[in-house]
Structure formats: C-alpha cells, structure tokens
C-alpha cells in the first residue's frame, strides 16, 4: 500500500518535472526522480525492470552490426539504444514489463503481449520517434508519437487497455 501511494505520488512529480521552471520546482523534480530510481531498484518493483534493461543491452549488442539477421538488416544505433533506455526509465512504476526485440530497419522494439490478438509493439527509432501498432481484440490502433522523455499518453493507454482486456 505504501509503495502504491509513493508510486502514484512520484508519477505526479514526474509530470511536474516536465513543466516546472523555477529552482524549487527543479529541486522537487530532481528529488522525485531520485526517489523513483530508488523505488525501481527495490525488489518490489525493480526485478522485472532490471531484466528488461539486460534484455535491451543483449539485443542491442547482437544487432550492432549491419546484416545481423542474414537478410541485410540495418544496425541498431546507439541513439536508438539510448532512447529505448530512457523510454523504459520513463515508464510509470507498476507498468508491466515489455520484451525487447529489433526490426530489420534498425529500430528497437518493446512488446507487450498477451495473445496474438492482444498485443502492442512500440518501435524506437534513432531519431526519437515512437511508432506503435496494437491489436486489442477486434480493435486496432497504430500511429507515431515523438518521445520527449515522457511516455506518450496514447501508448500508456494502450498498455493499460491491453492488460485490462
């Protein structure tokens, strides 16, 4: 219960960080982010997340060179790795962990999967675009969102819909 309350408070602080400009606001945002990091590192919420970061490293390492798939795939660049890392960091505590993959055009992918008909895939491009496609039962959704260090609402909503279905 305490963790849940803390987590929701920290999500609110994170929203503040994007808009607060004063020194006080920055200080609060920095402390909140620090606390968030501690929360992630705790066993209660951090275990799954640590595994995803490890997976991200492993997939990136495996796909760093051209033709990593035998079909001439583009390499996964450092920019894509760093953006995917930041995206994972920006996920609110308690969000189910995705699995990591890569596409032949060099984008890293984060996938939330429940069944072939309940799935969301987000591609992280080295330019900072998040391309997503979801199947939620009979419904589909796809589009692009720019990544500005906060997980776009459209993507968060899809994650929640997927896991509520």
């Amino acid at each position, binding site marked *: 219960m305490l963790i849940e309350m803390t987590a929701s408070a920290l999500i609110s602080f994170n929203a503040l960080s994007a808009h607060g400009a004063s020194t006080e606001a920055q200080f609060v945002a920095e402390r909140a982010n620090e606390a968030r990091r501690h929360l992630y590192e705790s066993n209660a919420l951090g275990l799954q997340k640590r595994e995803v970061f490890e997976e991200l490293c492993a997939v990136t390492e495996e796909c760093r060179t051209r033709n990593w*798939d035998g079909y001439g795939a583009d390499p996964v660049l450092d920019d894509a790795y760093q953006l995917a890392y930041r995206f994972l960091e920006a996920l609110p505590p308690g969000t189910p962990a995705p699995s990591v*993959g890569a596409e032949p055009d060099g984008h890293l992918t984060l*996938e939330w999967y429940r069944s072939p008909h309940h799935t969301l*895939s987000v591609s992280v491009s080295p330019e900072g675009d998040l391309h997503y496609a979801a*199947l939620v039962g009979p419904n589909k959704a*796809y589009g692009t969102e720019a990544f500005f260090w906060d997980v776009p609402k459209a993507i968060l909503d899809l994650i929640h819909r997927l896991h509520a279905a």
Partner: protein
Amino acid sequence: MSDSFQTLPALVDELLARFITKDFWVRADESIRPDAFVPPKDHNLSVTRHGGMPEETLWKIGHSVAEMISTKRRGILYGRADITTSDVVRQSLKVEAAPLPENVNHSHITGWPKDKPTQKHIAQRLAEAAKFVAEPQMPRLGQGP
C-alpha cells in the same frame, strides 16, 4: 530448378518461408513477433517460396541465410515462419520473384506503404497468420541450454 520457374507468379496458396535467425523473433508460445515481418529500408522483405522443394533443401537455404550474419557470434537458424501468398495479398502486398544464385526461389514481399506505423500493423497481421516451424536440430526455444 528451371529458369521458367523463377518467373512464374506465386500461386494463391503457395507457402513462403521467412527464416528466423534471431530467438527474439519467436515468443515463448512459439508465435512470431511482428519484428520478423517488418520490411527493411528498401521495402523488399525477403522470403523463400517453398515451391514443392524438399524440406532438406529448404533448411539448407535457411542455414545459408544464417551463415550470412556478420556478427562475432556464429549465425544460428532457429526455424522459419511460414505464411501463404494469400496472407500477403490480403494485406494488399505482392510476392515478386527475386532469384539469387544460391536460392532460385528467393522472392520479395513488396508494395509496402511508406509510413512505419502501417508497416508495423501489416507486419502484425502477417505474424498473426504465420506458423513457426522449428529447425529440426534446434532444441525447442526456451528449453535449450
């Protein structure tokens, strides 16, 4: 294999193999991730038409794809994702023969839209239709060492 075979249009329900050279393209339940069907930047997604080939020949081609991988680690063939030409046509895409010296059945799935989200959506549909066939010598994914 005769030259004339290469230029024949793919049959409506002909099987097409996309060789799986990355374990993260197959989920634990052996369904295929859409990543495997997202086209490369030239929008020509490589597949191999079964074309009545014996399984052995098909796997040999798959191994030659895996051997092309240019990483420090040796390329591994995990299996193949089979779809039909009608799965492709249903997504308003085409199958075009693109024979290679080492694989006369090599083809491209073409006609992809330019925008990435629509490509991803189509890849999701192809992956949904695909059937994973494990490479016969490969321990089942998630159960190997």
